[in-house]
């Protein structure tokens, strides 16, 4: 009796595990399907990119919307980041007796890593979601179809222009954010200590080298491209209904944020291989 029961229980738990692994395999499958169709979408972008007509007007408009309008947010977060980082690091620097190195350390941290990545994450939150929601609602309300019957290739008009604008604007935003961050850091140094404005900048730039700046700058192009293409992909293939729009905006942010970290990891490996580190 008892043996039977335990055998039954065992079988039940086996089917449970089996079902769980089935679920996992479905999840894994859908993950790869998603990666596949995202790559296909990127391929479509690249193939459309070179074929005229070029939507120059729309590109400029998107650069304004995506770049200029993100400036206040990116600037504010950059400023706070520089200030806080400096204030947090100061006690440790004092403990180790290297307080004078504070500007150099903060400068390297901001320029090499924190500036580009935090700016890109903020950018993903603001731009990724707005592209996802905008294209998603255009899809759901048939505006994309309406463009197609009005002699417009919606992929070129909507997707190519937005992805290009995001790719071009994020590096600019990252540089501005770096500068504002460093200014925040200067104020941070001055709260408890005392430094001269010129001397602060000399200290920052003395410790920086070309190989610190270049890879950090280049990787923001890839981050920008990722945010643009994922936002467009999620919006363009949004499922029907208002719920679909919300979902595409949401997953555009989640996926592009993760993508930024993955690309960052790749970037650090590549720069190391190339001897930049």
């Amino acid at each position: 009796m008892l043996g039977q029961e335990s055998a039954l229980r065992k079988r039940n738990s086996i089917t449970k595990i089996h079902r769980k692994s089935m679920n996992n395999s479905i999840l894994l499958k859908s993950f790869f399907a998603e990666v596949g169709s995202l790559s296909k979408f990127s391929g479509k972008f690249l193939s459309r990119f070179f074929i005229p007509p070029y939507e120059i007007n729309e590109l400029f408009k998107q650069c304004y919307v995506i770049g200029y309008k993100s400036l206040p947010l990116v600037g504010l977060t950059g400023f706070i980041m520089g200030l806080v980082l400096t204030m947090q690091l100061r006690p440790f620097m004092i403990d180790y007796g290297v307080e004078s190195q504070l500007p150099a350390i903060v400068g390297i941290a901001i320029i090499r890593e924190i500036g580009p990545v935090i700016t890109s994450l903020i950018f993903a939150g603001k731009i990724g979601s707005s592209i996802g929601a905008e294209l998603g609602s255009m899809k759901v309300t048939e505006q994309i179809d309406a463009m197609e019957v009005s002699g417009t290739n919606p992929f070129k008009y909507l997707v190519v222009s937005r992805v290009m604008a995001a790719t071009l604007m994020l590096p600019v935003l990252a540089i501005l954010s770096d500068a504002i961050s460093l200014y925040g850091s200067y104020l941070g140094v001055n709260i408890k200590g005392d430094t001269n404005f010129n001397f602060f900048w000399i200290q920052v730039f003395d410790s920086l080298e070309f190989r610190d700046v270049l890879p950090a700058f280049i990787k923001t192009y890839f981050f920008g491209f990722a945010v643009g293409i994922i936002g467009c992909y999620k919006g363009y293939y949004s499922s029907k209904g208002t719920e679909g729009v919300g979902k595409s905006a949401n997953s555009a942010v989640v996926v592009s944020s993760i993508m930024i970290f993955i690309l960052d990891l790749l970037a650090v490996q590549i720069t190391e291989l190339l001897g930049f580190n």
Partner: protein
Amino acid sequence: MSEVNKNEYNHVSEETTVLEINHLYKSFGNNHVLIDFNLTLSKGQNIVVLGKSGSGKSVLIKCIIGLLKFDKGSIRIFSKEIRNLNATALDKIRAKVGFLFQSNALYDSMTVRENLEFPLRRHWIKLSQEKINEMVSQALTDVGLVHTIDMMPVELSGGMRKRIAIARTLILKPDIILYDEPTTGLDPITGREIINLMIEIKTKYNTASLIISHDMNCVKSASDLIIILLEGKCYATGNYQELKSNADPKVKQFFE
């Protein structure tokens, strides 16, 4: 319309058939939406397609305009088979075919003026700014909404939005207009106005129209011919009087 345009489709006025559909078949996986659909539309004629919700009416006109690819059969617009056309040739045809979306599909981010200018600027026709302004105000006059020119679509009521969508459809003076449920979701009075507008447009510009509807008012007053779409086929064809007196229960259900 520009001169180029006239010459390009000169044969339209000689041949009266503007749209011909033969044995159209379209399925989504196992969902066989259209099985064998046939239709011939002539200049100055209004055909109404009647069918239940989900019977494939929207799919039918999306196939005609080339938004959906059909599986079998043929669709000829101005005697050109559209199945194998490239993007440029298809755009040229689309410039002569107006499409009113079931959901209006007005561009939310643009004003009424920009909405109407969009097809004018985007199609292959090159027009001067004055000409564009003139065409926009003409189209708005036709639908009686000149004062909304600088408004955003969200500021308009449902009926007004439908009219703006019709104005956008009309602006290129199409030879064929495809209406997808033009009166659904409107109150009877506004619906009546839209129907009158459609009849007015037909007499003024001598267009051919394919109207999808299950609004009996619309069917009764706007149709020259009615086609009942049932199970993917043309179940019955005839004018309003003929179909109304038809004894077949499947036809009758539409006229109760």
